[in-house]
């Protein structure tokens, strides 16, 4: 299973762009890169997923270089409500049969 490494915590201010980088050197060919967001007292929530290059949705963008050994979650113009823990997961149904293996996550704190 591909192990992920991401910063334990990050601080930002409202209106700034936040980039959280995740390292996954052992990513397998079939693996997707998926990010979940977790607010206090809630379960994780899927926010974005990609395989290569760039993916953008209404919440975030995900940048994946050609070697796929890392990925960067980009949150544009964060607000206080973006304060949460962000988890980077790497895997696939093929490799893990549905299991999600969570790493330590990045605790993002957005300040006014």
């Amino acid at each position, binding site marked *: 299973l591909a192990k992920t490494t991401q910063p334990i915590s990050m601080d930002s201010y409202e209106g700034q762009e936040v980039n959280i980088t995740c390292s996954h050197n052992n990513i397998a060919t079939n693996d997707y890169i*998926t990010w979940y967001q977790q607010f206090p007292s809630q*379960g994780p929530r899927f926010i974005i997923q990609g395989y290569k290059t760039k993916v953008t949705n209404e919440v975030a963008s995900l940048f994946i270089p050609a070697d796929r050994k890392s990925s960067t979650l980009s949150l544009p113009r964060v607000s206080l409500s973006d304060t949460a823990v962000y988890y980077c997961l790497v895997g696939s149904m093929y490799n893990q049969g549905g299991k999600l293996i969570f790493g330590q996550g990045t605790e993002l704190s957005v300040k006014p």
Partner: protein
Amino acid sequence: SAVISQKPSRDICQRGTSLTIQCQVDSQVTMMFWYRQQPGQSLTLIATANQGSEATYESGFVIDKFPISRPNLTFSTLTVSNLSPEDSSIYLCSALRGDRASIAKNIQYFGAGTRLSVL
């Protein structure tokens, strides 16, 4: 997305008793899972709840301590047995929808969790 309801949302239990947590999904799903999350920590997978058969447990978790049922495609229960203070944690269920895109990409939906405190 799938809506997942967990009950109870929180409970305080005495040592030696058991707590059963229910997880209800608003649509049929292929796979359901149970996780534990210690305060301030990440999620740890307990087991995969298999419909109509015994659950598949991860290393360090056993059926006698965490019996799981999944009688149909939308419902599962996790029981935490013979409670001790070390079992104080948040327990979450998740579900993988049955559509082809969700299965291929393994996008899962989580309940809000059950916060268990053992005295």
